[in-house]
């Protein structure tokens, strides 16, 4: 497993853990371990109570669990097989997740005016995952170009 794969696998695992935690406390109905002791990042209750914490009946945390699990599986599969179609799925999930995560961070900053440390931790795992898959794609592109370039 390459360094990029290891970083992505670690980030996705943390992402799964954080999103499972956020989903479970929402389902149980208890507040996150958060609060004013965390300073500007302690606005979890406010973020969780906002309208943006779910899309209709689906909690955003549930989407996070599925997304991070998909990233983790794609990372491991690609590390083992190096197949292009797996890389495509990995890249698709990572870029879609990163775009949504940037949107969620903007919502916290400009619409809710509160930061939740767990949401930011989760977001950083998605953005790190996206950066690593881009790095893998660049390597793949270089290798492909080298293989297709006529020998001098």
């Amino acid at each position, binding site marked *: 497993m390459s360094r990029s794969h290891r970083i992505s696998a670690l980030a996705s695992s943390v992402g799964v853990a954080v999103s499972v935690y956020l989903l479970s406390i929402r389902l149980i109905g*208890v507040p996150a371990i958060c*609060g004013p002791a965390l300073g500007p990042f302690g606005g979890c209750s406010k973020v969780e109570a906002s309208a*943006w914490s779910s899309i209709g009946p689906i909690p955003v945390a549930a989407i996070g669990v599925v997304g991070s699990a998909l990233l983790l599986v794609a990372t491991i599969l690609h590390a083992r097989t190096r197949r292009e179609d797996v890389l495509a799925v990995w890249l698709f999930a990572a870029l879609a997740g990163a775009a949504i995560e940037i949107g969620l961070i903007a919502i916290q900053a400009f619409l809710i005016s509160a930061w939740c440390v767990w949401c930011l931790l989760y977001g950083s795992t998605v953005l790190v995952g996206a950066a690593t898959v881009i790095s893998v794609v660049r390597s793949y592109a270089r290798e492909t170009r080298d293989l297709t370039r006529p020998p001098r």
Partner: protein
Amino acid sequence: MELIRRAALSGIVVGVVGVIVLFLANPFGGTPAPSMDGSFTPVAPTLTPAAGLATDHGLGAIDAPVVLTVWTDYQCPICGTWGNGVEPALYERYVTEGKLRIEHRHYSFLGEESFAAAVGAECAADQDKFWAFHSHLFANQAGENEGAFSAERLRKIAGAAGLDLVAWDTCIADPAVRTEVDADAEEAKSLGITGTPTLVLGEWQQSGIPSAEDLYARIDEALGN
């Protein structure tokens, strides 16, 4: 590489669509913003304690064998669940039997409206109507810092709770009352409380609402049952 290019493009498109759906979900999925047109009529709380059972900042007999201290923020939605659902259940099961007293403490950290609500509650306590105001606040929660506990609405809630509004108006302007609310928050921090509601029963302290079975078991244990 064509497959990779398509995957990248599709990922970005799906992500952007996802963000748009999130933004559009807000007006349909959110807590409705409270009306600010002056027509607000406070909702009555689910619990109206019997005479003599709501004293000072507590609900239940002063000499009840078990005291459950609850730290809340009036805008915290889970505290609303506590105030509107769990407290009435505990009232029926233990308080009316003289077995339990629920003591309220303020940990107002969600914003100015939380703080103003807590100040209002302290001024209600001055008129021996803390619990009436407190339960009216939870019954009239609507979002956070969106005007549900604006000065105008708090005054209407005070009226609905049966307060002398002239005395209440004077009281909420008193800086000493704000200091009391601040002091509660400082004490919460010193106790390591990081969220609301936080329940304290003897040595046991928990953030959030435990299951009914767990809570009843702990109260029963404290009662020696």
